[in-house]
C-alpha cells in the first residue's frame, strides 16, 4: 500500500482534445473486420484518413471472445478482452476504438467487471500476466464518431451532401445494451446513428424496429427464426420508404444483407435494400470514390443508390 499511490486519484483523460497527438487512439479490429466485413475496415480507414486521425492497431491482438467464450467460461470471457485492453493501456493509449458492436460490447463488459470486482481483477491480471487499471475509454463506432471525433469535425468534411436520400439506421442489440455497461444513447430509442445520417445530408427515416433483434446468434442453427426476425426489420424499413439501411455491426450487416435474397424468396416480396456500414455512408458524403469504400463488396448491390446519389448531386 503505497501512500503516494493511494492519494493519487486516477486522472481521467479527455479524449475530445489532442486528436492529432498520434498514438493515443488504439484500434481493435476484431475478426469480422479482417474477414467477412472487410468493407467496414476499408471504409473506416478511408474516412479516418480523410479526418486526419491516426489509429494504431493493437499489436498481437486476440479474439474478443464474443461468439462463444462468454457463454462457456466466464473467466475466459473476461480474460480475452482484458488481454487486448491491457496491451493497449500498457502501450500508453488513452482510448480504444472497437468498430464491431460485438467486440466493443465484450471489451466494455470486461472493463466494467474488472472495474467493479477487485477479486476478479486480481485473478484476470494474474492470468494475462499484465496489469490493467481500467483507465481507457472504450468506444464503439458511433461513440467514437460522435464523442471522440465530434459532429462538428465530421460536418466540415461533408463535401457531397446526400440530400434527398432516405436512410434507415439499424442499431440492433449490442450497441446500446445492456445500458448499465454501455452507458451510451437511449437503449430503447437510440438516435446517434440518425444524427450521423443527418450530418451526411441524407434524411433519417424513423421506423419501429430500430433495436429489434436480427436473430444474430441463430444465424447458423435456426435460419428460419433469423429470416422471420430480420424480415420484420427489413419490411418495416421498406414500408417507411427508406432507400437504404446503415448499420454499425458486422453481424447485423450479414443478416440484413446476406439473407435479404432468401427473405425476399421466402415472403415473396421484393426488398432491394442495400445495407451499408455507417462509415461507408460517411465516406460517400465526404466525396470518396465508392470503390475506395468497398461498396461493391455487398450482396445487395448498391448501384441504384449510388446512381441516385449521382443524380441528386447534379
Amino acid at each position, binding site marked *: 500500500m503505497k501512500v503516494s499511490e493511494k492519494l493519487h486519484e486516477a486522472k481521467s483523460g479527455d479524449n475530445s482534445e489532442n486528436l492529432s497527438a498520434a498514438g493515443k487512439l488504439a484500434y481493435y479490429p476484431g475478426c469480422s473486420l479482417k474477414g467477412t466485413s472487410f468493407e467496414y475496415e476499408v471504409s473506416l480507414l478511408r474516412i479516418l484518413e480523410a479526418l486526419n486521425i491516426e489509429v494504431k492497431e493493437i499489436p498481437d491482438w486476440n479474439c474478443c471472445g464474443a461468439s462463444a467464450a462468454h457463454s462457456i467460461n466466464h473467466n475466459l470471457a473476461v480474460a480475452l478482452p482484458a488481454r487486448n485492453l491491457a496491451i493497449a493501456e500498457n502501450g500508453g493509449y488513452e482510448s480504444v476504438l472497437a468498430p464491431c458492436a460485438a467486440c466493443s460490447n465484450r471489451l466494455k463488459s470486461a472493463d466494467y467487471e474488472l472495474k467493479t470486482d477487485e477479486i476478479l481483477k486480481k485473478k484476470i491480471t494474474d492470468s494475462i500476466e499484465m496489469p490493467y487499471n481500467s483507465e481507457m475509454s472504450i468506444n464503439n463506432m458511433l461513440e467514437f464518431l460522435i464523442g471522440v471525433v465530434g459532429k462538428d469535425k465530421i460536418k466540415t468534411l461533408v463535401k457531397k451532401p446526400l440530400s434527398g436520400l432516405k436512410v434507415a439506421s439499424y442499431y440492433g442489440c449490442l450497441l446500446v445494451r445492456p445500458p448499465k455497461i454501455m452507458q451510451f444513447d*437511449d*437503449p*430503447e*430509442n*437510440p438516435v446517434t446513428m440518425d444524427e450521423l445520417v443527418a450530418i451526411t445530408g441524407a434524411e433519417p427515416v*424513423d421506423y*419501429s*424496429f430500430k433495436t429489434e433483434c436480427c436473430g444474430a446468434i441463430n444465424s447458423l442453427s435456426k435460419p428460419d427464426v433469423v429470416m422471420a426476425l430480420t424480415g420484420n426489420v427489413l419490411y*418495416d424499413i421498406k414500408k417507411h420508404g427508406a432507400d437504404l439501411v446503415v448499420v454499425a455491426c458486422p453481424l447485423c450487416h450479414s443478416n440484413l444483407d446476406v439473407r435479404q435474397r432468401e427473405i425476399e424468396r421466402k415472403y415473396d416480396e421484393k426488398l432491394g435494400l442495400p445495407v451499408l456500414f455507417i462509415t461507408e455512408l460517411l465516406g460517400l458524403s465526404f466525396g470518396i470514390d465508392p470503390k475506395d469504400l468497398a461498396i461493391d463488396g455487398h450482396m445487395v448491390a448498391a448501384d441504384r443508390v449510388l446512381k441516385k446519389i449521382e443524380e441528386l448531386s447534379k
Partner: protein
Amino acid sequence: MARIGVFVCWCGSNIAGTVDVEKVREEAAKIPGVVSALDYKYMCSDPGQNSLRNIIKEKNLTGIVLAACSPHMHENTFRKAAAKEGLNPYFVEIANIREQVSWVHENKERATAKAVDLMKMMVEKVKRDKPIEDVRVPLNKKALVIGGGIAGIQAALDIANGGVEVILVEKEPSIGGKMIQLDETFPTLDCSSCIMTPKMVEANQHPNIKLYTYSEVEDISGYIGNFKIRIKKKARSVIEKDCTGCGECWNACPMHKNIKSEFNVNLSERTAIYVPFPQAVPLVPVLDRSVCLHFKKGGKCQKCYDACGPKCINFDLQDEIIEETVGAIVASTGYDLMDTSMYGEYGYGKYKDVVSGLQFERLLSASGPTEGVIKRPSDGKTPQTIVFVQCVGSRDPEKGVPYCSKVCCMYTAKHAKLFAHKVHGSQSYVFYIDIRSTSKGYEEFVRSTMEQDGAIYLRGRVSKIYEDDGKLIVKGADTLSGNQVEIAADMVVLATGVIPKQGSDKLAQMLGISYDKYGFFTESHPKLRPAESSTAGIFLAGMAQGPRDIPESVVSGSAAASKILGLFSKNEYEVEGTIANVNESTCVACFYCQRVCAYNAISKKEIKDRSGKLIKVVANVNPGLCTGCGACVNACFSKSIDVKGFMDDQIYAEIKALAI
C-alpha cells in the same frame, strides 16, 4: 454541598430475589454526599412515594437516586413526586437494577455488585445535575399552509373554521392542485370539479383565510410558535381587486398559438394572458411575461390593456414580498408525475397517441380540450381500442422508482370504465403487475370495470409499442396464460408514477424537515406521528408525504389542522428543558454543531459591545427547535456546547464511578 437520598426498591421479590437490596443500601450510605439511604418493598406505591417525599423534606435533599426499575417505567412518577416537594424534577436519577440487573442475571453476589455500580454511577450523576427548567415558547396563533391542493385547502379550511387565521400560499395562478384537473373520481364517479370548486371558493371567501396565489414561500426562519416567513407574490400584471374575470383580455390576446396549456397537460393551447381553467380561484388572469409580446417586443402590444374595461392590467407591476409571522406550518406541496423518457420503448413523446394518465383525464373532462369527447391527439378520431399500461415508472427499481404509486390501479380502472361508458362497443386492455384496490368500495369498482364494462386485464408488462398503419401495436406478455400478446390499439394510456413536487427537497431544506431519498417529506414517526414532520410546529399533508388518494389527502389535511388547533389551544408551547447550551466564551464559531444538527436549531449569534461593534460570532441554540440529542456536543472540538441532562462532566463522573 450535595445532599443525596438513595432509595432502593425491592419490587417485591423482582429485585430483592436476585439483588441484595440491603447491601446496595449499605453501600449507598457510604458514599460521600449521601445523607439518606433507604430500601422499600415498592417505591412506586403510594406509601413508597410518600416516604420519598417525606425524606426530601426532612433531610432537605438536593437530589435523589432510585435504584429500581427502568427509567422508562417510573422516571416520570418519581420526578412528579419530587417536584411536589419543590425539588427540580430533573434532580431525580434512576439506577435500573430490575430490567438490567435482577431480571437478566442469576448470581446474586455478582448481580448485587452490578446493582451497586449502577447506583454509584447515578449518585455521581445526580450530584452534578443542574436545575433544568422546561422552556416555554410563546405562540403566534396564525398558521401557514404551503400548497393549495385538496390537502392544503382542507387543512386551511379546518384551521380557519377553528377560529385561527391561515395564510394559504399557492405557486400556481389558481388553487385546486391536481384534483381540479381530474374528471371523475373513483370509486363513486362524482365529478371532481363539482366537489372541488365549492371548497376552493370557500377557501377564497373565508374571513380567516388569506390567499396568496401565484406566490411562493421564499424564506422561512424561526421555530415553533414563531416562524418568520417571506412570501414572494409574483407580478401578475393584473390588479386583482379590480378584475372582474370577464375574459375580455385573454380573448384579445394575439398570442394564442404554441403556448401549451399546463392545465390541459399540453393537449391544448392558451394565450399569454390567461386563466388556467374557467373555474379558477381567484378568477383573475395572469400575464405570462415569458411569452407576452408586450414584454418580448418592447411594449408595443397592449391589446389586453385596451380590451380591459376596468383597466386593471398594469404591465409595470413588480414582484411583491410579503412578510408574515406564524406559529405553525402545514407543508402540502403535492406531487408531480414521473417523466417517462426512460421508457424509450413506449414512445411517449414520439407517438402522439401515447398519452399519460393525467392527459387522458383531461380528454375525459367536459371542461377539457375535447369537451369530454374522447379524441385521440393525432387525428381527432374517437379511439375504439385503448391499451392502458400500469406501473410506468412505479415498482420499477431499474428505470423508475421501487415504490407503488398507489393511485394508478384505481384511476386506470376508472379510465377504462369511463371509456366504456363514453364509447359504446369499445374495448380496453389493462396491463398490470398486481391490482391494489384496498379501500372501501375499491375492489368492487375494479371488479365491475372488468365484469360489467368488459375491460380485459392482462397480468404482465408491455415490452414495446410501435406504430403500424395508424395503429399502435402494443407487444406484451400475458403471464397468466404464458403467451406473448400483440394488441393493435388506437391509443395507449400510460399510468405514470407519482413523484414529489419538483423543488420539494429545497423547501424541506428551507423548513428544516427531513425527506426521504425520493424527496417525500418524512413523518416524525411513520405510525404514531404521521401528521408531524421532524421539526416541531411543521406538519405534513397530502401527496407531499407519499402517494395517497383523495380521501387520504383530505384526512391528512384535517389531521394537520387538528394538530395545529390543539397546539394553539394553549398560549405557550412547552419544550423539555434537556436541550443544548453554548459556552459563548469559548465558542470559536466553526459551526460544526450547525452542520450536524438535524433540526436547524443552531444559528449564528453576533455578540456586540455597547457601541454596537461586533465582538464575536458564536453558535446559538434555538430552544424551540432543539431536541437535546447531543450530536452538536460531539461535533464541537473545544467542548463549548453541552446538553442538559447529559452533561459532559456527568458522563465523566459516571465512567469514573466504574473505575476499577
